[in-house]
């Protein structure tokens, strides 16, 4: 049995006179103990999709099951089994770390002790602040506490909505390591994120834009399928260089990428020297072939959508 299976699920919102299709009809399946990522820019429909799967909103069309249970008819049973961590920190800010954890354990009819093994790694880091009001924790600590609260009833599926947004790089890395360990315990994890670099940490990712999936594949597969020739270009004056690159024939796309500009060539046969001569640049240029990563794939997919 698949952990999650979605069939033609869609949702629109009415905003004034216009109807916004937040999620266009989608179908996909997620295996047990899979770490599945929804990657996409703000407004791609990630949160709406998660809210439909966590039974918070009802889809306009289509069906979905979580753990074999229908999200509309068996929503009560689903709520006992899933853990949800909304994008916005939504624990009681005026209750302490300890009190929040105990509160959520109790309303799931369990105790902190019973499932302590699940959260031990995470909670150990929070323990020194257990008497502090949740509102006074740092961003990373808040996310860790929220994760603890979402895990305390030993869910079979965990939904995380942008858990690392606004968290520093070190905490983000730690957070993903925790997710990996949870996955090993057999918990299915669905995580949405706007950060491309986190995509490679998932078992499979869905690249999402405007309520549609552009690709669903393991990250390595997505990179492998990238068929274009990619070059990295660097010069002294980066901004005029980018403007210049965008105007040249034979270049499909050019975009800033770290300290280089990445250039996608229309024709794979075009060589670096040919490009150099086309550029006729006055400044010293460094041009070298680049290996695509998930971000290149996503940018390309978005452009050709």
């Amino acid at each position, binding site marked *: 049995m698949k952990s999650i299976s979605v069939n033609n699920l869609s949702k629109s919102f009415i905003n004034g006179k216009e109807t916004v299709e937040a999620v266009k009809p989608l179908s996909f399946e997620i295996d047990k103990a899979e770490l599945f990522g929804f990657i996409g820019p703000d407004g791609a429909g990630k949160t709406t999709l998660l809210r439909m799967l*966590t*039974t*918070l*909103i*009802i889809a306009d069309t289509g069906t979905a099951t979580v753990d074999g249970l229908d999200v509309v008819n068996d*929503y*009560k049973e689903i*709520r*006992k089994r*899933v853990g*949800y961590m*909304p994008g*916005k*920190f*939504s*624990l*009681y*800010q*005026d*209750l302490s770390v300890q*009190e929040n954890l*105990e*509160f*959520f354990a*109790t*309303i*799931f*009819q369990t105790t902190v002790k019973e499932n302590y093994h699940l959260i031990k790694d995470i909670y150990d880091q929070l323990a020194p602040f257990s008497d502090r009001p949740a509102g006074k924790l740092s961003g990373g600590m808040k996310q860790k506490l929220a994760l603890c*609260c979402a895990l305390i009833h030993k869910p079979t599926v965990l939904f995380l909505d942008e858990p690392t947004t606004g968290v520093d790089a070190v905490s983000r890395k730690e957070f993903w390591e925790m997710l990996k360990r949870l996955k090993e315990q057999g918990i299915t994890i669905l995580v949405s994120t706007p950060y491309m670099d986190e995509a490679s940490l998932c078992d499979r990712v869905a690249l999402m834009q405007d309520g549609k999936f552009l690709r669903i594949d393991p990250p390595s597969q997505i990179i492998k399928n990238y068929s274009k020739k990619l070059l990295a270009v660097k010069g002294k004056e980066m901004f005029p260089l980018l403007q210049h690159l965008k105007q040249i024939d034979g270049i499909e796309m050019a975009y800033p990428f770290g300290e280089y500009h990445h250039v996608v060539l229309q024709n794979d046969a075009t060589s670096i020297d040919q490009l150099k001569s086309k550029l006729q640049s006055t400044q010293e240029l460094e041009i070298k072939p680049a290996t695509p990563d998930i971000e290149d794939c996503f940018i390309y997919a978005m452009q050709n959508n």
Partner: protein
Amino acid sequence: MRSLKFLLQKEFRQIFRNPAILRMIFIMPVIQLIVLPLVANYEIRNVNIHVIDHDHSMYSRELIRKVTAGGVFQLQGYSANYKQALLDVEHDKSDLILEIPQGFEKQLVRESEAPLFIAVNAINGARANLGAAYLNTILRDYNQEIRTQWIQFPKFDEIPRVEVISNYWYNTHQSYTLFMVPGIMVVLLTMVGSFLTALNIVKEKEVGTIEQINVTPIRKHHFILGKLIPFWVLGLFVLTLGLLVGRVIYGIVPMGNIGLIYLFAAIYLPAILGLGLLVSNISQTQQQAMLLSFFLMMIFILMGGLYTSIDSMPQWAQVVTWFNPVTYFIEVMRMVVLKGSSFNDIKGHLGVIALFAVVLNTWAVVSYRKRS
């Protein structure tokens, strides 16, 4: 049951950690009960009178002395012509003009009757009415006095006369505070009940915690009970505080059984809490909840018979007051505190309020959605 217990524990913790709520519960009732009854007062004092005396006689001087001696009227001006007096009224210095015509004494003695002229500034209707009425009473007394001086009473009064003596029941001294304080207590209770509940739930919406609660298997009625019970307790606490302030500061001891007041409040509060719940279902932000509650409170207070008598409202407004829970409690409060009414007297009110509680809460529970 166990989750309800924990919900309650959580709510009370949050309430006691919020200094704003604590201040509102402790300080607001005390201040309102001390200040409001003193200022919300219909007794008219310091009516400024301008006298024009064309007569300058003994009788006119005696009349002026009588008018100003009562304490209600302050002699603001004394002039020789009407123009000057009117100027005073136009500048809002005087409320009343009393003009004594020339030959007032002569006419009074000769013809046993003399005209006087009164002009009243009627911008403030209540003040004008009451001022003129006071002045008329004084003039009548004065008239009576003169007549008794003149007329030799025969052994038996030849003309039958009716003398009216009023006897004020339940509020012998017509004390305004005795009338206002019980009403203000009801308003306080209503504010604590509806404002705090509405704001509390909407705050969970605003902060996003309700989202987290909604994905849990928590039962809808547990969640709602967890919200209502703490504010029910707080409401009864505020009532106790109000009764204590009334007792210590104004010496108001309810004539009836104090238990009746608590019984009524215990049923009244769920009705008001249900209203707060409804407001919170409609509102998305605390600001919306606040404005909506404020709007409702204004109507409740102005149409609840706190300041103005419901009997003198137009018929349609009286019908509206039937749907105002505040009306019933203010009435019951005054009945029990002033009149010493018993259970049998208030059981009709009690029934109506119980109906309010059932209807409002059912409506609130049905309209509360754990998902959209």
